[in-house]
């Protein structure tokens, strides 16, 4: 039986190593490369002399405490990575909004329509490079729960205004212009449903119906667009307004809003004034705002997500600071006499200081890096959830740099007290504490 359990343990160990290979192999590779160029030796020698093994053994001498502390740090950085990436992605619309783009909506609110005749009038305003009108279709695919952001647009003008963000193959664009029932789908939504160019799909609307009473429209997928950057949302679908307007049973010749591109951001102010003045005192007064302000205002209606995220992250890190700090102090205090012995043997105080600080860094960076890896895996999973409402959520280089900074700060704060304790510890006092 003993041999059986021994082999079982070995098999489990290797299975665990294989299962977690995607996590540790990249680290190992980087470590190996750094080792090859002598950096690891240099760094560990500087920090801990040739006592790297000693630091590692001290850190893991109480496995349960080590793993619990590591887990706490892991969770904190998982939360930090995931929530910060979510926050960045959520606010990406504001960052990505072009300075030369404006949005014109009904002054009452953006759910109220505007007459389509406004489009031609707006196009005539000085300083405007392009105008595209849009309607919210309220689409879903097969199941009402599978909502899809579907916009009925003027297909001839879409890329004039949003061509910087939306990348559509010219051949597919031409096909779209020629096929009234054609639609172009974003890469993410197409991938989520396994759609490809040439497919014919039904789309339902939870707002509109056709003249025969049906809420289902058939479309040909003529193109699949991608975003010019990972942050561009590709969960949307564009259908042709003319087809929608012809078949829709109500609300004909009305549009939802207009997307406008100006010839220069410096003209925005004048263009806004000209448009809104044009329709003042009409039954459909307009409100024109820069796209950035519109997106910001739209997000603000959902609540201050950034503040909520910051609060959660701050709370998580505060708890971690206390947990790791106490753990480190406890770990060093309980080996007071050992520190005394090491000093007696000739280890200098400065070296012991660096070794204990090294423990703290090793612990925080191990937990933090694992946390970020887990966050990456989690976000990868989220990005593959069909119709997840936020575009590609990724750990941007900025988030990773911030995380590394936080790890260093956390390690320094939690390690400095026990390291100073060791630095100042008197040998005789230390040896008397058994």
């Amino acid at each position, binding site marked *: 039986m003993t041999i059986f359990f021994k082999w079982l343990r070995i098999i489990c160990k290797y299975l665990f190593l294989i299962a977690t290979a995607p996590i540790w192999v990249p680290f190992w590779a980087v470590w190996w490369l750094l080792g090859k160029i002598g950096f690891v030796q240099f760094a560990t020698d500087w920090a801990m002399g040739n*006592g790297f093994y000693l630091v590692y*053994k001290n850190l893991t001498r109480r496995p349960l405490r080590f793993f619990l502390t590591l887990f706490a740090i892991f969770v904190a950085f998982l939360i930090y990575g995931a929530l910060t990436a979510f926050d960045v992605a959520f606010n990406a619309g504001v960052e990505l909004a072009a300075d030369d783009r404006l949005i014109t909506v009904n002054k009452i609110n953006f759910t109220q329509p505007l007459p389509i005749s406004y489009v031609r009038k707006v196009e005539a305003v000085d300083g405007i490079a392009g105008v595209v009108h849009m309607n919210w279709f309220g689409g879903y695919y097969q199941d009402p729960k599978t909502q899809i952001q579907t916009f009925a647009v003027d297909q001839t003008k879409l890329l004039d205004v949003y061509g910087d963000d939306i990348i559509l193959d010219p051949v597919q664009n031409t096909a779209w212009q020629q096929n009234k029932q054609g639609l172009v789908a974003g890469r993410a939504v197409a991938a989520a449903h396994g759609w490809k160019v040439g497919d014919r799909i039904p789309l339902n609307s939870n707002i509109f119906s056709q003249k025969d009473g049906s809420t289902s429209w058939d479309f040909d997928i003529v193109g699949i667009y991608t975003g010019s950057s990972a942050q561009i949302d590709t969960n949307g679908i564009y259908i042709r307004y003319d087809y929608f307007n012809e078949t829709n049973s109500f609300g004909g010749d009305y549009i939802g809003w207009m997307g406008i591109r100006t010839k220069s951001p410096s003209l925005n102010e004048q263009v806004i004034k000209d448009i809104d003045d044009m329709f003042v005192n009409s039954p459909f007064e307009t409100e024109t705002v820069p796209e950035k302000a519109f997106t910001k205002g739209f997000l603000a209606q959902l609540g201050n997500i950034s503040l909520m995220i910051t609060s959660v992250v701050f709370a998580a890190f505060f708890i971690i600071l206390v947990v790791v700090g106490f753990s480190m102090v406890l770990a060093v205090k309980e080996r007071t006499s050992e520190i005394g012995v090491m000093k007696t043997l000739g280890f200098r105080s400065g070296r012991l200081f660096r070794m204990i600080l090294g423990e703290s860094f090793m612990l925080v960076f191990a937990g933090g890096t694992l946390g970020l890896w887990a966050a990456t895996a989690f976000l990868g999973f989220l990005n593959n959830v069909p119709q997840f409402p936020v575009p590609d959520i990724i750990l941007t280089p900025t988030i990773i740099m911030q995380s590394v900074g936080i790890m260093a700060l956390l390690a320094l704060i939690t390690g400095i007290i026990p390291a100073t304790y060791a630095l100042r510890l008197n040998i005789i006092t230390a040896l008397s504490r058994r």
Partner: protein
Amino acid sequence: MTDNILFDLRSISKRFVKGKELITVFDQLDMSIKEGDFVAIMGPSGSGKTTLLNMLGGVDQPTDGEVWFDDSRIDKLSESQLAKWRANNIGFIFQFYNLMPMLNAARNVELPLLLTNLSKKQRKQSVATALELVGLSDRANHMTSEMSGGQQQRVAIARAIVSDPKLLLCDEPTGDLDRTSADEILDMLQLLNRKFGKTIIMVTHDPAAAKFAKRTLHLDKGEFIEKELAA
């Protein structure tokens, strides 16, 4: 034993304040130890044995007087210089072994070598030699918690001698051992003194242990009251 004086304590005094009381541990104490000597220091509790040993080991400083080691004055060295001096010249053996519980025997013995520039291979070789000398080659990879008190003290001896110091300072090295184990340890110290020329200063309460030394110094109230040669 040579005529070369290894340790020379010149008129050392040690005083400290405890509460409102000034306590004098030594006053104008002189002591010389020759290279290759094996000295046992005996005395009742509170006589200053451990304080003396601490001063010899450079972990405590006299209030007055001079401590010379091998023609170098050490009582004026900085903490950092003393650490280096200890690493180069002294091997310590404690009553309770003071081994690192998370390290195996070999890693414990290797500790002083981490302060040298020896390569990993050279360190491994030195550790193997030291463990062989104390008869624990077969226990190199054992954790110290798996060993008896006598074996742990042998590991501590191996740790003390691995960097080949001139002097071994032993603080009650057999105080926590049964008679048989204690005699084994003392035999080993005697061997290190006679065969390898190590100078040994041993603080002990045990007269039987003191008999293994070449001479015994009796310390009482901070003064040597009697000096005798061991049989």
